[in-house]
């Protein structure tokens, strides 16, 4: 096996060094009834055969790269500069361990520090952690933070928050003394502010909003943070990070915690993971933030140095009293996001945000003019929007997928009450010609 250096000869030398004749002498502690079970796994393949097998398996997939895709709903096709992969494929980054040995990990640590700096800028909040698993789990951790911080029992969540995120939140809180309560939607798919207000009381630890929300609509969040803070509750905001390049950021809305999916920041689709949960909060919540934090300090000679810090929150120090059980996070994805945001830079991040809107508004107006399809032309959006079709969406999808077009994500699977609706996403990756071609084929469905 070419990953294992010990040859038969080496093995003998190692056994001699240990002073045993056979490895079984070392395994005496393993009860013999357990030893050497029969395991049904295929025999080894050579690398050539492995590559052939993977190409075959790959050919059973029809990927976004060789299609025209308008899929979004929590996972987004965005342009990624080639330099991002050059950074994340550096062996010294991707084969390194967690930077507990600061002196031998300054590369990873400084990049985490820069990632934290970029995320606090983008979200407009004071502190970002080094990453969480994904948008859904970072939102669940944000809810837990609010519950503990306020010592209350209820958390409110908008029905316009991504359904997966709400499911994960419920999973995390099941069986605990905490409850989740949802507030409903208006006809234009923004959250219903009256319903929200009717559910506020002195046991509410925090409220969770998403903007752009699951339906792609920008929520008007004016005055909500004041309302919540007046009751001693926190405001948690979920959102597409690229929207904040040009649109109001969580800090400007007065949010206490900003969480969400960082995958749009230079991370590939990869059939749903690995992605990047971003997590940013105000300074007053610093010692409650889950996960790793990297700080700047000095070494014993007064030189700038980076190190993991405020570790008294974490499981390897606090064990059962930790703020979270998280250990391994998504460091390499955070590095990708760091490289991506650095490359896009101050102007680029705003431009890419605007191009998303440009494409989505164009496509929305084109589809809006088709007979048999309905869209709301008035609500402000970022890069996706709802389309209602007169015909069953499943049939439209079947037809278009055969033509290598992924028309959008069926909404009914998440919200059974919304029939024949689908969510269409147009990012900066789409050209006018591609969108025209899509509209033309959609018209014929």
């Amino acid at each position, binding site marked *: 096996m070419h*990953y*294992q*250096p010990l040859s038969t000869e080496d093995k003998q030398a*190692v056994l001699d060094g*240990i002073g045993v004749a056979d*490895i079984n*002498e*070392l395994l005496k*502690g*393993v009860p013999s009834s357990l030893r050497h*079970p029969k*395991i*049904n*796994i*295929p025999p080894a393949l050579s*690398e050539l055969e*492995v*590559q052939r097998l993977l190409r075959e398996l*790959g050919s*059973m*997939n029809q*990927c976004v790269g060789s299609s025209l*895709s308008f899929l979004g*709903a929590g996972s987004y096709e965005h342009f990624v500069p080639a330099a991002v992969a050059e*950074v994340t494929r550096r062996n010294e980054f991707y084969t*390194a361990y*967690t930077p507990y040995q600061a*002196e031998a*990990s300054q*590369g990873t640590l*400084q990049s985490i520090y820069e990632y934290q700096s970029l995320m606090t800028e983008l979200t407009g909040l004071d502190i970002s952690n080094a990453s969480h*698993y994904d948008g859904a789990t970072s939102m669940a951790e944000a809810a837990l933070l609010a519950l503990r911080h306020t010592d209350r029992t209820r958390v409110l969540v908008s029905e316009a928050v*991504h359904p*997966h995120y709400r499911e*994960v939140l419920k*999973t995390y809180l099941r069986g605990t003394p905490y409850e989740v309560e949802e507030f409903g939607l208006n006809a234009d798919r923004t959250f219903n502010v009256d319903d929200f207000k009717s559910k506020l009381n002195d046991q509410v630890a925090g409220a969770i909003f998403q903007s752009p929300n699951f339906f792609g609509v920008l929520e*008007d969040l*004016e005055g909500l943070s004041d309302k919540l803070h007046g009751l001693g509750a926190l405001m948690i905001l979920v959102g597409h990070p690229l929207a*904040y390049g040009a649109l109001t950021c969580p800090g*400007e809305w007065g949010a206490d915690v900003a969480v969400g*999916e960082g995958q749009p920041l230079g991370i590939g689709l*990869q*059939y*749903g993971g690995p992605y990047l949960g971003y997590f940013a909060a105000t300074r007053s919540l610093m010692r409650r933030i889950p996960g790793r*934090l*990297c700080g700047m*300090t000095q070494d014993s000679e007064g030189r700038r140095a980076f190190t993991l*810090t*405020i570790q008294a929150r974490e499981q390897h120090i606090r064990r*059962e009293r930790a703020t*979270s*059980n998280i*250990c*391994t996070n998504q*460091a390499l*994805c955070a590095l990708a996001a760091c490289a991506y945001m650095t490359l896009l830079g101050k*102007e680029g991040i705003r431009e890419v945000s605007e191009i998303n*809107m*440009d494409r989505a*508004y164009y496509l929305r107006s084109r589809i809006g003019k088709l007979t048999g399809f309905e869209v709301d032309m008035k609500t402000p959006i970022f890069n996706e929007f709802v389309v209602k079709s007169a015909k069953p969406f499943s049939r439209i999808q079947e037809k278009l997928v055969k033509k290598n077009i992924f028309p959008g994500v069926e909404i009914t699977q998440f919200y059974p009450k919304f029939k024949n609706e689908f969510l269409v996403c147009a990012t900066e990756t789409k050209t006018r010609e591609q969108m025209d071609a899509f509209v033309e084929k959609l018209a014929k469905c």
Partner: protein
Amino acid sequence: MLISPDDQLSFEKSRPGRRGASLPADRCAKDKLFEKIPDHFKRRRPLLFPELSEPEIVRHFVNLSRKNFSIDTHFYPLGSCTMKYNPKVNEWAAGLDAFANLHPLQLEKTTQGILKVMWDLEGYLREITGMDRFTLQPAAGAHGELTGMMLVRAYHDALGQTKRKKVLVPDSSHGTNPASAALLGFHVIELKSNARGRVDLETLEKHLDDETACLMLTNPNTLGLFEEEIMQITKRVHEKGALLYYDGANLNALMGIARPGDMGFDIVHLNLHKTFSTPHGGGGPGSGPVGVRAKLVPYLPVPLVTQQGQNYKLDFDNKKTIGRVKSFYGNTGMLLRAYVYIRSLGREGLFKASEDAILNANYLKEKLKVAYKVAVDEPCMHEFVLSLKSAGVHAGDVGKRLLDYGFHAPTVHFPLVVEEALMIEPTESESKETLDLFVKAMIEIAKEIIEEPDKVRMAPHTMPIRRPDEVMAARRPILSYRDQLRERILLAEGAPT
């Protein structure tokens, strides 16, 4: 000079007007679309992002990478972390457009290849562990533990045994074990290990009662010792109606040698980034699949991947499910790498991996015994623990000094049951020559401890930085570039430091 003297942040190198990426100039909107968006939806806060050109940015990151140790550059004998080689064909496969560029909400008939990979991987993991079904959703080991403990609770609740609130963990366990259990409201009770570093049957029995929900166990444990009385342990726990949880951090010792399922464990989490060679990435992404016995399958998170005839599908129909623990289906890119690893090694290769890992660990232990105290001196599995107690220097100092010799530090000051612990796991990826070099360095350091202990206490001497001031970092946290600017203003205003 090998490493660039440049230690500036990207933010500090920034110069107005530079760009690191080009974007299309064309717009679809005839007039200025952005002006039509209501003002309060527009960002006003200035965005303090760096402005740098692509060559500057690439050099910045490449030079940063050179300040790191990594498996591809150094030997990493980190106990319980299993820093084995990350095969390059795994990365090649994960980079194929046909996998990397798949959207998670595509129609199933367009994703049969990746679903087959997931289904087959699950099958292999079942074989290796002896469990009945796996969820591939958890994103890391600790996330797997959390999922596992949710299953424990759901199982007991369904039986009406709601008073089972106690979770037992040995004092040698990983910190994530008690943290995961506590996150769900379980009361954690630590079991004191016996003189040979194993679970003490009497202590276990004393704490086992009808309020016990679960025993969480790592086997081999964090001392690298196999729990010889494992069959009695699982029997007694089951007799009391509690469940057994297997922390898979140390499974690299057992592939083809013994299976947690056969030992009687009910729930198992694996770390694909340890045993199954997916890269650690400087702290993730990992992947933490959770396997269970048949009685716990109805509670597994949804969706599960299933096979129907020739087709593969996502099955959302698991009646008593605890629900989703993550969006979509898990860290699929990591699952794919683990699949490639298992196909490349096959049954014999996996078995040899565990055997070689055990041989390498025992070899190091024998060679180091002459200069260091072994915590429990008997044959070990894939790792072992040295104790620097009364040596005059801390275990952490030896770890730091090893950096000067070109080796990453072992895991230090863990497990907590050993004073001044140095936990060493060489893995099967290392050649005998590398092990011998490591032994040579350790013997040198042992000499230094006696002859010039300050050299060890002050180490490292050759890294890009000396020891960082941790106290200063925690007392006055600077966690972002904006914090730095703020700090500078505070200092200028004469604020006390």
